[in-house]
């Protein structure tokens, strides 16, 4: 069974204090690893897809990287508006369909 574990569960940063969120995964044949941002009471907002080990993607203050066992979401000089829950999900390549298996998320709070 596919498994996704995210750490830490919660993270409190000062504005400008860079850090990384971790996503460890176990999947039988990875088609893609996805990062989403979720604000309270809202649906997840797509951030990145990573397909193979060594791949990196950037968007503003966020950078996602992928190895064969884990992914990191690096946040550089965060601002209060980056406060949200960050979700990681995997999709397997076999079996048809596009089922996403999610972790429980990292709740990020950025303070002034």
């Amino acid at each position, binding site marked *: 069974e596919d498994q*996704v574990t995210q750490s830490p569960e919660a993270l409190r940063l000062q504005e400008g204090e860079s850090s990384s969120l971790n996503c460890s995964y176990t999947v039988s044949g990875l*088609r*893609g690893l*996805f990062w*989403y941002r979720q604000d309270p*009471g*809202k*649906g*997840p*907002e*797509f951030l990145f*897809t990573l397909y193979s080990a060594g791949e990196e993607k950037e968007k503003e203050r966020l950078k996602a990287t992928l190895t064969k066992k884990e992914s990191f979401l690096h946040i550089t000089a965060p601002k209060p508006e980056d406060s949200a829950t960050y*979700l990681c*999900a995997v999709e397997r390549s076999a*079996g*048809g*369909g*596009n*089922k*996403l*298996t*999610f*972790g*429980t*998320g990292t709740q990020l709070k950025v303070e002034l």
Partner: protein
Amino acid sequence: DAGVTQSPTHLIKTRGQQVTLRCSPKSGHDTVSWYQQALGQGPQFIFQYYEEEERQRGNFPDRFSGHQFPNYSSELNVNALLLGDSALYLCASQALNTEAFFGQGTRLTVV
């Protein structure tokens, strides 16, 4: 582009009742998936519809059923509601094998 739209946004039902949730996919998307998200948890896959057929199903009982219409919109039906069905229900749409985009969700409370 309106993105993925879900209705209603909030709903309160009594144990034992039935509920229908609706989803209109993003323009150009033909695949719709439904997820259940309990408080403090990640979304859990319920099922996916493609070409009006259930393509894949997660570990949810038969009380959860769905439908996809020719215009790609979808419904999620839950029968015999339990207190434990209280959650945020998310609809996601995609073109096959591309990234999924989520709606804002329907908050279901069962009392």
